[in-house]
């Protein structure tokens, strides 16, 4: 009964979404107040019914209802409760339901945090979100219904994929989907602005905090995914340029570009049509990612079980969404005004260079990801021989991506210091002389400190050093410029939180670069054969293998190694790497044990038993690896600081005043050019 209620609730939600997609937009077009007024209640209603549907599926999981096909394929009565809940989004159907739930949650958020938007804008934004929801709900109901019954019911479930039975999986998909789906809000704002034909600065101001929020979740989701791969896959890798990782990375790169482009649009009224285009591309890439992961056109460790009808449906949906929005764009964008003027050397240009690089980086990732499909398509059509088929992997992406980061990081130090409209390059370079010095010093000293010269290490440290020193200089000069009698704390407070947000996010990039550089250049791996009592020494740690015991978990049996770690003669840690066999899927899993501190990770994973009672053990010393994810936390935190900036919350009073002088819909006047942020 419960699954049927869930399905029914989803159908009701679909009906509400249809109304939400049609009435408010029509109302805004024909100026019918009552139809526009429906947007908020409909979004709320849609949210409630999706929550009911989601709750019903969760209920079936918790209560082991194996008469539901999806539950029977992704759960098991022995599965611990937290994984039964995470099992809801452990497969294709349920993860789509999670997607829809996130979409309706964002809709609810827009309905509630849009007090200072005009009624037409709210109607159009929520209307576009309703249209997107229709697509996804139809997709679920027509091709991927998680509520389908299995008759007769299975006696027990086939269990959740052991790889997914992990804390990381409980939080990673919701976080990532919040990001993916959050970009639909940005997209909806862009489409709403195009529909209204008034691409004003207000649009940029309204959509910017939503973009940053989505970007934040996306960053968090990507970082969690990387962290999960690091400790769960058992060989210590943290980024593989796998198509599924790329699918989340591309929209993030474009969203990063969009945040910067919106900064110009908001402050200076320029690049409006470019910002709109980026908003469309960012969401299109998140849809494209869905297609790549669920259609089976690419091979990936993480892709879902696929069937062609699903692929066809998403591709059709993708085409409808992208073609209609790009047509709308081509119709409206040429009429957008130019905005304020600026010189070749100015903050505007620098932000544009940032945009070009980030967009090219995103395009490079896209090119590498789909190039095999292109070649295969050309050969299937007879333009190329079948033997031309290629695989594009990590070596390609590293070669192409890393060089793009060098100019990007250089601009990251320069851009925040540059003035709007016109900046002086010589002046900035002189002001940054100490930053250059520090950078050179760090680049030379750090590799030597880490125990060996490497040009790549020097380059990485130079990039990180440049960000940190240029940012520090920027903050220093900003704080110095206040009135003499002002206390430091007061000066800090007088800067808007978005100013701090920007710097925290930039520092996050530096932190991640340090992690990536040092771990790739200085990690040590030892792959050894250990008898009981044998030791291995890496860096100044000694690992002693004290045997293996058999343990039994709730739904697995495991061989559990006992490894003591000494520093000098002093025992600092007992580690328990495991080799698990999950009973239902009989899948072997390597559960590494990791000792993390801020300077290094000790990573121990158990291989196979070999003759004479010995085991193959893999031991890694990974300096600074955790900095990679710390950096992401910094970036997300920076985003949070930017989102809570006062100007997004209380612009109503000021704007009201401006509206009296300016015609409604006319570009909102911008803050003056001297501002430093």
């Amino acid at each position, binding site marked *: 009964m419960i699954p049927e209620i869930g399905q029914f609730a989803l159908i009701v939600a679909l009906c509400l979404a249809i109304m939400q997609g049609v009435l408010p937009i029509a109302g805004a077009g024909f100026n019918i107040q009552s139809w526009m007024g429906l947007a908020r209640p409909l979004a709320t209603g849609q949210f409630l019914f999706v929550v009911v549907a989601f709750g019903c599926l969760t209920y079936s999981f918790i209560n082991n209802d194996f008469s539901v096909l999806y539950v029977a394929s992704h759960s098991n009565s022995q599965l611990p409760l937290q994984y039964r809940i995470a099992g809801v989004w452990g497969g294709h159907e349920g993860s789509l339901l999670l997607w829809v739930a996130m979409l309706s949650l964002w809709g609810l958020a827009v309905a509630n945090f849009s007090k200072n938007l005009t009624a037409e804008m709210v109607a159009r934004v929520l209307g576009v979100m309703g249209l997107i929801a229709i697509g996804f709900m139809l997709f679920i109901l027509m091709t991927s219904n998680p509520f389908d019954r299995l008759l007769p019911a299975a006696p027990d479930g086939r269990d959740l994929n052991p790889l997914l039975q992990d804390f990381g999986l409980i939080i990673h998909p919701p976080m990532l989907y919040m990001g993916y789906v959050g970009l639909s809000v940005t997209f909806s704002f862009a489409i709403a602005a195009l529909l209204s034909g008034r691409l004003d600065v207000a649009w940029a101001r309204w959509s910017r905090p939503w973009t940053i929020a989505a970007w934040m979740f996306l960053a968090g989701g990507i970082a969690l995914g990387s962290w999960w791969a690091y400790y769960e896959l058992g060989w210590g890798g943290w980024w593989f340029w796998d198509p599924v990782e790329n699918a989340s990375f591309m929209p993030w790169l474009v969203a990063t570009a969009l945040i910067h482009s919106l900064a110009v649009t908001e402050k200076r009224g320029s690049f409006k049509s470019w910002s709109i285009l980026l908003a469309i591309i960012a969401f299109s890439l998140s849809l494209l990612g869905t297609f790549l992961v669920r259609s089976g056109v690419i091979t990936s460790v993480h892709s879902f079980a696929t069937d062609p009808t699903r692929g066809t449906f998403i591709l059709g949906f993708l085409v409808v969404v992208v073609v209609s929005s790009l047509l709308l764009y081509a119709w409206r964008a040429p009429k957008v005004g130019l905005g304020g003027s600026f010189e070749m050397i100015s903050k505007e240009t620098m932000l*544009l260079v940032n945009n070009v690089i980030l967009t090219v980086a995103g395009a490079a990732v896209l090119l590498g990801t789909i190039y095999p499909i292109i070649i295969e398509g050309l050969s299937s059509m007879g333009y190329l021989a079948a033997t031309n088929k290629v695989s594009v992997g990590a070596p390609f992406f590293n070669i192409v991506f890393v060089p793009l980061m060098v100019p990007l990081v250089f601009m990251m130090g320069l851009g925040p210091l540059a003035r709007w409209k016109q900046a002086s390059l010589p002046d900035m370079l002189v002001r940054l002389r100490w930053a250059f010095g520090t950078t050179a010093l760090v680049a030379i000293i750090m590799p030597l400190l880490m125990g060996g010269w490497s040009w790549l290490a020097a380059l990485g440290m130079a990039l990180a050093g440049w960000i940190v020193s240029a940012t520090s200089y920027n903050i220093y000069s900003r704080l110095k410029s206040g009135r003499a009698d002002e206390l430091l704390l007061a000066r800090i407070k007088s800067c808007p939180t978005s100013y701090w947000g920007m710097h925290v996010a930039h520092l996050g990039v530096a932190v991640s670069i340090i992690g990536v550089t040092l771990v790739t250049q200085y990690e040590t791996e030892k*792959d050894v054969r250990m008898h009981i009592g044998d*030791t291995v020494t890496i860096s100044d740690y000694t690992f002693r293998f004290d045997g293996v015991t058999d343990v039994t978990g709730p739904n697995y049996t495991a061989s559990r190694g006992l490894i003591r770690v000494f520093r000098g003669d002093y025992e600092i840690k007992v580690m328990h790497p495991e080799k698990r066999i999950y009973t239902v899927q009989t899948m072997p899993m390597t559960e590494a044990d990791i000792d993390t501190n801020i300077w290094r990770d000790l990573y121990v994973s158990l291989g196979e038993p070999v003759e004479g009672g010995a085991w193959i053990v893999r031991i890694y010393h990974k300096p600074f690896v955790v900095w990679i994810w710390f950096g992401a936390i910094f970036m997300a935190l920076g985003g949070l600081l930017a989102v809570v900036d006062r100007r997004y919350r209380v612009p109503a009073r000021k704007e009201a005043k401006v509206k009296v002088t*300016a015609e409604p819909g006319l570009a909102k006047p911008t803050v003056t050019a001297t501002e430093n942020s």
Partner: protein
Amino acid sequence: MKRYLIAALLCLPLLGQAKEAEYSSSDPVMHLRVMEISAELRCLVCQGQSLADSHSDFAVDMRNQIQEMMEGGMSNREVTNFLVERYGETIRYRPSLNSTTVLLWFGPGLLLVIGIGMLYFNVSRRKKQVQNQPLSADDQRRAEAMLEQKSGDKQA
């Protein structure tokens, strides 16, 4: 459990007498070479993993095969070419540069040049356009509003 206890007891004496474990491969330098080249080769039976990353039988076999070839004196390039001849270009994760991959390798660079070029062109053109435009009534109002806001902003 018993094994565990015995092991623990046996190991009570401190590290002094412990024996350094052997590498799982007889030649650690060779092992590194094998892993280095495996990272650039695709595990054909896996779903998008390299030979170095995969635990599958195929990957283990191939790594042994590679090690044998290297011990036989083949260079990294020779080993890769040997495998490409038999398994095809798809086994390379670093596609070789040829007429079908030229767009892949130079596409990003080309895009960067086009992007920067368009940026330069646009910025210089727009400067002219903005300068040549006479101040419209709208702009006039906008400027006034801006001035007003500027005075209002002094406090903020």
